[in-house]
């Protein structure tokens, strides 16, 4: 349990502190008139704030899983195609700065169970995929097999070891999450 807690703390602490730094540095640039309120750099404040919300919710999901706290599950219908499009839109500056081409096939895929955890963890998986990709990233939704396949043709590194904990959480909900350096696959 100690290792899982350490992995979880390290992952979320790193990302929460990095997002906060981006917000502080951008607002300080605004205050010092290095940038203006309508500068494109201000987008990073919104993008980092959006991530902080997901990170906070996912931190709680991971801790509850490790500490075996039974949360009342929020079951609601979740359109995964809309969710993925929303995340890509919310992180467009990161995608632009990464000089990344992201493709997504417009296939509707809707789930009815485990919406809260899936909503948050899936967005973090995509965040990791964006950070870990060079040049291109492909997202494929398969409504015949209820799958999402994220393909990273040129990965910068191995997937973060927080994925092991995500795998366990999904597994508890009857969802398969498999991953390697080039592919992250969720099967509902």
């Amino acid at each position, binding site marked *: 349990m100690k290792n899982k807690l350490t992995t979880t703390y390290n992952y979320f602490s*790193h*990302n929460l*502190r990095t997002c906060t730094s*981006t917000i502080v540095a951008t607002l300080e640039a605004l205050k010092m008139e290095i*940038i203006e309120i309508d500068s494109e750099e201000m987008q990073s404040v919104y*993008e980092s704030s959006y991530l902080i919300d997901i990170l906070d919710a996912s931190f709680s999901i991971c801790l509850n899983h490790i500490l075996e706290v039974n949360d009342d599950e929020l079951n609601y219908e979740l359109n995964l195609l809309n969710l993925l499009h929303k995340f890509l839109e919310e992180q467009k500056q990161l995608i632009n700065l990464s000089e990344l081409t992201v493709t997504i096939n417009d296939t509707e895929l809707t789930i009815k169970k485990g919406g809260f955890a899936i909503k948050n963890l899936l967005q973090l998986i995509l965040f990791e995929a964006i950070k870990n990709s060079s040049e291109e990233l492909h997202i494929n939704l398969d409504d015949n097999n209820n799958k999402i396949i994220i393909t990273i043709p040129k990965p910068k*590194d191995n997937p973060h070891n927080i994925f092991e904990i995500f795998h366990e959480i999904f597994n508890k909900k009857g969802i398969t999450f498999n991953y390697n350096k080039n592919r992250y696959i969720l099967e509902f």
Partner: protein
Amino acid sequence: MKVLLSDDELRLRKVIVLHLKKLNYEVIEASNGLQAVEMAKNNNPDVIVLDIMMPEMDGLTACREIRKIEGFENKPIIMLTAKATESDIQEGLKNGASAYLTKPFSPKELVDKIEELIKK
């Protein structure tokens, strides 16, 4: 004055670059430790700012490698990182960092630290 800034978080790096350029620093950028070591060798920066958690080569390893380059034994290296525990700070200093700034930080803190280390 040339600063080598190495951080894989692009949004943060971009805004730090704006701050440093405003103060007339020349900035060269790296997005992982391996790139930082190469850029240190090829561009001879006056100050190096390294994030710890980066892909391909982490900042601690990069710091050790940069210290091995001739002429870099005593150059200012600032670790800029989200790892904030006491043992993390000690680890950074043990690996050859001159100073340690934990995220979240203000760019002013970074500039003050750069200037303090240059004066030394």
